[in-house]
Structures are given as C-alpha cells and as structure tokens.
C-alpha cells in the first residue's frame, strides 16, 4: 500500500500542486487547510509523513506539530515544515516542536519530492 502523506497548507493551489507531484511519485495524499483541520483529519489514522506550512490561520504550523507530537501514534512521524525564505526563528521553533525537515518557499515540485524521498520511501 502506498504511503500516506498529509499536506497542511492554507493555500489550496499549493496543496493541489504538491498533491499532484506526490501522487505522481506514488504516495497517497491527505490534504488539510490548517493545523486544526489536520488534527481532526488525522484522528489516529496512519500517516507516514506530514508536510506543514508555518503560517496558517486557526492553528499555525508550530502549534500543530507540538500537538501532533503529543500523540504517541505520531511520535516518530517525520514532519517537513514549509518555511519562508528561511525564517530562522520559525525554523528553530519548528525544530524544537519536532519538525526537523523543512523546505523553503517558493519551491518547485521536484524540490519537495526530493525532500520527501530523503525521509520516506515511496
């Protein structure tokens, strides 16, 4: 079974493009538009990787990762943060929360795919 990746971003077009790229590479994709939405969509389901934006309404990426990591089911789930041209502060916060990988916006689909490939196998 294909591995499941959750994409959390408030921009629908970004989610769509990332989803197209990931599906093309053989992953399953679940989309969520913010941290709150992501948590409710996860709800104990198996996910192999989470890609999350930092700046989102309702629940930002950092809070979301903190919440995610509190759940034992997702303790070892890798998280890729989407940071803006390297917001060093946010990156640090994200790392402290448990998101160790990041991709800097704007990125191309291939850049996202290679970041994903470093973390999980298709």
């Amino acid at each position: 079974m294909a591995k499941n990746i959750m994409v959390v971003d408030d921009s629908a077009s970004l989610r769509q493009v990332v989803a197209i790229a990931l599906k093309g590479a053989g992953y399953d994709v679940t989309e969520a538009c913010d941290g709150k939405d992501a948590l409710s969509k996860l709800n104990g389901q198996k996910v192999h990787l989470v890609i999350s934006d930092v700046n989102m309404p309702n629940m930002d990426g950092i809070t979301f990762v903190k919440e995610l990591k509190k759940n034992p089911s997702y303790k070892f789930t890798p998280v890729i943060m989407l940071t803006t041209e390297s917001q060093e502060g946010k990156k640090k916060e994200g790392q402290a929360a448990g998101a160790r990988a990041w991709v800097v916006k704007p990125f191309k689909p291939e850049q996202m795919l290679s970041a994903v490939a470093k973390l999980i196998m298709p």
Partner: protein
Amino acid sequence: MDMDDALQTFMAEGHELLEDMENALLSIESDPDNEDTINAIFRAAHTIKGSAGLFGLNYLVTFTHVVESVLDRVRAREVAISTDLVALLLSSCDHLTDLMDWVARGEDDVSDSLARKSLGIEENLKVFLDTPVAGAGEQVSADSSAAEDGHSADVDADEPPVAEPALTEKDLWHISLRFGPDVLRHGMDPVSFIRYLATLGTIHHIETLLDAIPDAGNMDPETCYTGFEISLHSTQSKEAIEGVFEFVSEESQIHILAPDCLQEEYIRLIKALPEEDMKLGEILVRCGTLTHRELESALQQQQSSGNSLQPIGEMLVEKNVVNSEVVNAAVRKQKTVKEARPPEASLIRVDADKLDNLINLVGELIIAGAGTNILALRSGQSDLIESTETLSRLVEEVRDSALNLRMVQIGSTFNRFQRVVRDVSQELGKDIRLTINGGDTELDKTVVEKIADPLTHLVRNSMDHGIEAEEVRLAAGKPAHGSLMLNAYHDAGSIVIEVSDDGGGIHKDRILSKAIEKGLISENSAAAMTDKDIFNLVFEPGFSTADQVSNLSGRGVGMDVVRRNIESLRGTVEMDSQDGQGTMARIRLPLTLAIIDGFLVGVNQSAYVIPLDMVVECVEYGAWKESDNSHCLNLRGEVLPYIRLSEYFETQNPGHSSERESVVVVRFGDSKVGLVVDRLMGEFQTVIKPLGKLFNGVGGISGFTILGSGDVVLILDIPSLINDAGTLLYQTDRQAMTA
C-alpha cells in the same frame, strides 16, 4: 485533478490576494502604522510568489520578488509609507493582475509591452531597495541581492550537473555519518537517507558502526546509536551530497570528503570521530577511500603533529557554512508573517452554474410539492395532508438555504471603489474621501456582479459633477475635502444601495431647460413636475450631458444605460438632491432573482401573484370606498390611489360582479397603492420564470410562475403598477376638472 485545475485555483487565489493587497494598500495611506495591514500586503505578495514558484512561473516569481523585497523593508520600518510608494505598489498590483491574465492565456512568452512594464516598475521599486537607511538597514540591499542569489542557486540546483570526466575506481567520496541520538524521535530514518544517497551515485562500500550501542539494560530503543562509513561513487557536487543529510546535519556528525582531498583531512576526520583511530583507519581502507600505505603515513603524520586537535566545527563542510550565511541574510529579510487572513477553512469554491442548477431544481421541487399538496387536500386523508405539510415546510427551508448560497456581501464590490475614488480624485485634483456603510448587506451574486458597472458610473458622476472644486467648497463653508458615501441596507424585501455626495446638488433649472431643449418634456408639463421628477430626468434616454462630458463620467455610457441596467435586475433608481447640500442616487433592487414568497390573488377567472414582501395589508374595498369615480380610497385618512386589476388587464367579465372585493395595499419605496381584486388566495412560494420576448412591451407584469395545479400565473410588477396608478390618478383628476 490535474495541473490545469491547480492552476485555476492559483488564479482564483491570486486574484483574491491581489484584491486584498489593493484594499490594504488603500487603507495603509491613511493609517501607515498599522502593522496588520502592512503584514497583509506583504503576505499577499509573498503567497503569490510562493505559489508561482511551484508552477514554475519564474517570470512572476522574479517580479513578485522585487515587490516583496520592498515590502519587507516597509515591514522592517526601513522604508516609510509614502503616496509615491503606495502608487507604485498599486501599479505593481495592477501589473501582477496583468501577469496573472498572461498566465491564464497560457502563452509561453511574456509580450514585449508586459516585459517593458515589468522592467519599468522593477526599476522604480529598486529605488526603494537602494535607499540607505540609518542603523541596521544598511546591509539590506546586499542582503536582498544575496537572497536573490540564493534563490537563483535553488533554480540552478535543479538543472542537471555538468558532466565531469569519469572518475577512476579509486576516486570515491567518503562519507562519515554519526547520527544524533534523537534522529529516530524526530521521525528521521537513517536508512532512508542512505537509500536517498544511493540515488546520487553508487554506494561502493558501507560499514555500519555499532560501537555506541550500550548494554541491553541501558539501551533505549528510541535512541539512535548507529554510525556509518560510506564510500560513494558519484559525479554530484559536494553540495548535493551534503544536501542529502540537510535535515539531520544539525544533530549529527557528518563528514564528507571529496575524492581529491588531502590526507590531512582524513587525519582530521579520524581524530574528530569518537571511535578508536586504528579501527577507523581500517574502515577507511575497507571502504576503498584510503590505501594501507596512505593510512600508515597519515597516522604517522598525526602523531608527529602532536595535539593540534582541529575543532569539528571547522571541518563541517565549508560550503555549508557559506550557505547558511546566505540563509541568515535572508532570515533578516523575512520575519514572522502574521496571519490576519479570513479563515479559508470554512469556505469552498463552487461553480456558479452548479448553484444555478440547484436553484432551478429547488424551483421544480416547489412546484411539484405544491401539486402534491393540492392532491393531498383533495383526498381528504388527514395523515397524508399532515405529511405533505411537513414536506413543504422542509422544501421551504431547502429553498431558503439554497438561495442563501447565492448570497454574497456587497462589501467586496464597495471596497473596489476605494481604488476608483482614489484614482479619480487624483485625476480630478480633488480631495475626495469615501465612506462605506452596510458592506455586510447580502444580496444575490448575479445582482452584485451586474450592479458594479452602474455603481461605478454613479460614483464617477458624483465625483466629477457632484463634488465641487476645493475653492468653491471652502467658499460655501464646506470642508475642503469632499465626501462620497456608499450605503447599503435591506428595506421591505429589497436591498437599497445609496450613492451620495456632499457636493453642489443638481440644478433643477438647468435640468429643466435642457430637457425642454431636447424635447423630452413640454414647458407646460415642466411646471407640474415635482422635484423628484425633475431629478429623475437625468435618467431619460436622450438627456445627453454632452457639454459636461469629461473623460471620466462621459465614457459613452449615459445615465439612461445605468437605469436600464438596474431595471433589467427588476430594480429602480432615483435621484434626490438638495441644492448646495449634495445629491443621492438611490438604487432599489430585489433580494433575489429566482424564488420569492408570493401572495396569490384572484381576479375574475385569473390569478396573479404579488411579491409578499411588498404587501402591506389587505382591506375590504367597500369599507373604504369614497366614490365610484375617483381612483383613490380614503384609507384611515390617508389618500390611497388604487388600480382595479380587472380593468387594468381588461379581463372584466360583464356578467360577473363580485360581491365582495378586496384591496391589497402594496408598497414600493415610499409609494403605496391599492390593488382591487376579487379573491385573496393566500401566500405561496413562487418560482419566478422570466417572460418571453413577446411580453417585452407589456406593463404591470414582471414574470410568471406555475402553480401546483399546473396553472400558469402572472407575477405583478409592483413598481410599474405604482407608476401607472399615479398617471391614472392624474388623468381622473383632469377628467373631473373638465367635467
């Protein structure tokens, strides 16, 4: 879902963002210190750049990057908000819209004019990037160019590397990995990285180091204890190989030695690693990166050089360090973007056609439901009647929520005028401020779309002709700046939109003389006209304002077109003016174009529907009738003109005389009129069907509907009936006078 869909989403999103950006830019001028607004502007540019990058729209990325850089300086308070800057950013906004359209057209190359415009705006924007500022900002222009370099480096990295001469068997990269203890806890799988490394070349040899694993009792299964020594055959750059371990580089010890590196570097590596020197040496030999002879000489050298332990930090990939500087520079550029955006979470985009289809179906459902109701009543089964009643109540709710789906707030349309007012007032050299009220008033999407043009015309008209020049205003004791007001509110089943100004008002005499000159009215009738009638002459076709036409309001669209547009939405428009105080155009529109609550009345054998919102009351005709000749009732002391529908539609049946006629009092705007009917048949849900072209010239009806019984019934056009009632009254008066 494919890329085209995604691109569509991007376009829609982009236009929304640009609209937000424009609104924020317009409000920032008056409130330059509002951080939320500055952030909103920045975020819009930033998000567009981010998404454009994803679609490979490099042209858009490059342009937006410059805009973003300027905005970033604004955010960092290094550049002050000025009228010039706002104007420039607004034109950038417009240009981005053009670029979006270019993307939408799917053309490969940017046209010359677009490219020239891009360059022009970029040049102007760069002025703000180069301006030196006091203190910390001095590095900014260097920073932004560094960031740009970093960005282009990103792009370059995606291109296939230039083929290097084939490496000999001996020319191997050596990669030494000691994963940090927490990598597993962070969701990083060492095996996954190594597997990815294998995509960059061939792994020649791999040694797993398990020395760090403690006794079973002390071992924590969640901690990573493993290290790897890898020799890799690859033509990739050092940067690319480093990139593999990017996510673990901070917590792990990673050493990458190029195939051609010096022996000293091996020594430093061996020293830096926690394992025993000799053992590592053996591993390196086994990996094929070092020969035995090289190892021996290396170890000797190490001993002879004594204790000059090299700090690991220095070893850590020089290139990486350089990169992080670039990155740091960019960090200063970008600070937290505060989210003040409306939550997108609760919104979904729906095709307008789908909604229209839904409304049509709901309309059919209502008609079918009404049919069922009639059958149930006829059958006389009480339980069936009860269940159909429940059903119709539900259908009614479905109708309301379906109609509600089409309702949008007028605010976004109003906000567009901020820009219009700003631009036009600059053009005219007048200082005009726009106030918006009732932006949260909701109305049908189709109406909102169609009302924008007439509104624009009215707004421009007010600014051009209504509001006086500053000297005139001051002389009249008014504030120097003119005020324009857009106001919206609900009133008796319609929505009212007012465009008002505090200008000089309409000069009645001028209007009258012009109307007479154009042959629209005769001098006699002019004398009998009320103020309102006079003002409304401006909407008459042929009432050209040629001698006042400027390039603003006289764009070939007259006020008669404004009225026609509004009437096509079943609405009305009227003018009101106070000399020297200002003018107000009042547009009255129906809330919805599709389904209404109707009131069914019977006249002889026919039935008619009156929109329920307009019905004020029903009274008995006989009780208020004064005389048979006049066309008015004395309703509780109030003069109420009335129309006998049987006469109006000429359906009078000579043999038939109703014993008890009723008067339905209807109201539209400020006018009331009574409609004399034979029977009151109660309310019912009316699906408005448009009349065919044949009925174009027929007054008094605005559409038709189908009853549950299958009968076709006409819907009364109350505004036109009210109008006709006035004329009728006038004629009867004249008849009375001549008699």
